[in-house]
């Protein structure tokens, strides 16, 4: 009896060793590239430490950079822009849902073709695509020619954020559509037939059957969309030269390039608080799943 027990635990010990051995690259990576940097960033944010200056040590602990960020109108404007640009999220959800619903109609053929096409923007070269859109938005570019407008799409501070929203919707509706479509495939035909017998029209079926049943997907898209939106950066980086649409991350990036490291640290953590707050449902699901 005791023999089998020790044999089992020996096997378990070997499994423990193998497990840790195999996951060690990821553990090391997370320690070196995430955990230590996070604490380092936190540390720098409370100092006046210029991390790159040779031979310089920090002189004091201070809350100055937090004070500076919290009092910076530029930072809060960039936070406002970040939230404003997230208007694209509900548009993407509605458009994706609507298209998925149309596509889910049993009579539509070439479903596969449409799904592949709608997802192309999400899997293309970012800068190449940005350059084309930049040209669309140019003052003597395509949009002004087609619509007969005279807008400075990417320059006018009152317009630029809306222009970026248009581009984001174009690039992002494909993935929401794919997910809603997959969810709709799981909805039983019987429900729609029952609604038909009750004389319900397409709109009623869409809003009273599909929408409530797909709530988990909507929730998932909202949570991932918000945390993605809080990290928004690339469109400003590739397309816009002014600061009128600057997002929080883009503002922080600017401070980083400018060498204002304690400020980068403080602003990063203030942004992190928001990301964490909106990611709580995701964390909870993750803990539950594991």
């Amino acid at each position: 009896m005791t023999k089998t027990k020790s044999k089992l635990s020996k096997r378990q010990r070997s499994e423990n060793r193998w497990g840790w051995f195999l996951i060690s690259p990821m553990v090391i990576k997370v320690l070196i590239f995430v955990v230590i940097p996070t604490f380092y960033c936190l540390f720098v944010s409370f100092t006046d430490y210029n991390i790159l200056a040779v031979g310089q040590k920090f002189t004091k602990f201070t809350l100055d950079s937090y004070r500076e960020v919290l009092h910076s109108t530029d930072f809060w404007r960039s936070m406002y822009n970040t939230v404003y640009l997230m208007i694209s999220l509900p548009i993407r959800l509605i458009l994706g849902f609507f298209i998925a619903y149309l596509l889910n109609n049993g009579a539509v053929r070439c479903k596969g073709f449409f799904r592949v096409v709608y997802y192309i923007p999400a899997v293309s070269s970012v800068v190449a695509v940005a350059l084309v859109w930049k040209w669309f938005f140019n003052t003597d570019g395509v949009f002004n020619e087609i619509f007969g407008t005279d807008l400075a799409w990417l320059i006018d501070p009152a317009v630029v954020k809306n222009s970026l929203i248009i581009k984001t919707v174009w690039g992002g509706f494909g993935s929401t559509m794919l997910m809603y479509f997959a969810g709709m495939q799981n909805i039983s035909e019987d429900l729609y037939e029952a609604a038909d017998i009750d004389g319900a029209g397409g709109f009623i079926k869409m809003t009273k059957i599909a929408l409530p049943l797909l709530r988990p997907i909507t929730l998932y898209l909202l949570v991932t969309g918000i945390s993605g939106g809080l990290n928004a950066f690339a469109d400003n980086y590739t397309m816009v030269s002014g600061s009128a649409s600057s997002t929080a991350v883009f503002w922080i990036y600017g401070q980083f390039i400018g060498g204002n490291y304690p400020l980068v640290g403080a602003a990063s953590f203030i942004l992190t608080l928001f990301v964490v707050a909106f990611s709580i449902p995701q964390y909870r699901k993750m803990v539950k799943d594991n």
Partner: protein
Amino acid sequence: MKKRDTIISNRAIKARNIAFGTLTYAVLIVIAIATVFPFLYMFFSGFKSSEEIRQFSDVFYLIPKQFSTWGYEKLFSFNPNQFSFIRGFLNTLLVEAAFIFVGLYVGVATAYGFAVIDFKGRNAVLIACLIGPPFVVTLMPQYAMFSKLGLVGTFWPLVIPHFFGTMGVVFYLERYMKSLPPALFEAATVDGIGHFGKIFKIAFPLSKPAVIVQVVFTFLGIWNNLLESDIYLTRVQDKTLQVMLMGLNNAVQSGRASDQPIIMAAATLSSLPVLILYLLSQKYIVNAMAGAAVKG
């Protein structure tokens, strides 16, 4: 309900369905065109000549009146210290190689470790790895680290993280491998096959759909990486293709519309590799994306 009523209502439903079907197709096709329109524009504009653009600068049209390779010729005779498609492409491939030849296999082994081996501390580590701060938090410290190691200006800061496997590969494959029947691995254990045998003879081949998805997405992520490529690669000729493309745009487009074909030619060339990759793997990619929310 009487039988006749049913027939009539069926007929009405059928007529309504046909009208609805036509409208559905119209909407779907219009949206499909709007989706690919920027790519069509990119492709065709690359074949316009500078002359043609100057001449018709006020009107919009898509297809060149006369196909010209002017943009491509200009592109390949560009000052290579400012833009070189070949250089940029090879620079990007260098980083991709670190993933394809090292990171992928390390990632597969790690995923197996998490998914198949039941060891103490597994769940805690898994969750700790998944909860990461936004990327701006680690940007500055990582830069400081590579700077102090004297590696800024080299490819190492871009390549080294891939030696440890990537989050995407590990945690996507972890979920996939968990869904493989455990009996397979138990049988292999009985046959005396070790863990490495089980990883590369059982788990890896059986996870093929998931591996393809992650190879494509990781390839795309590296292809589209802007920030790290920009801050760590300091010399213009070392930049990855996408960053070089931004530089080309700044160098060429001093507001002159007539130089647009050069940029669009470069954009087209830099889009082709990932577009082809997507079209080849679309079956797996589309299904994987679709499943993301359903499975959670």
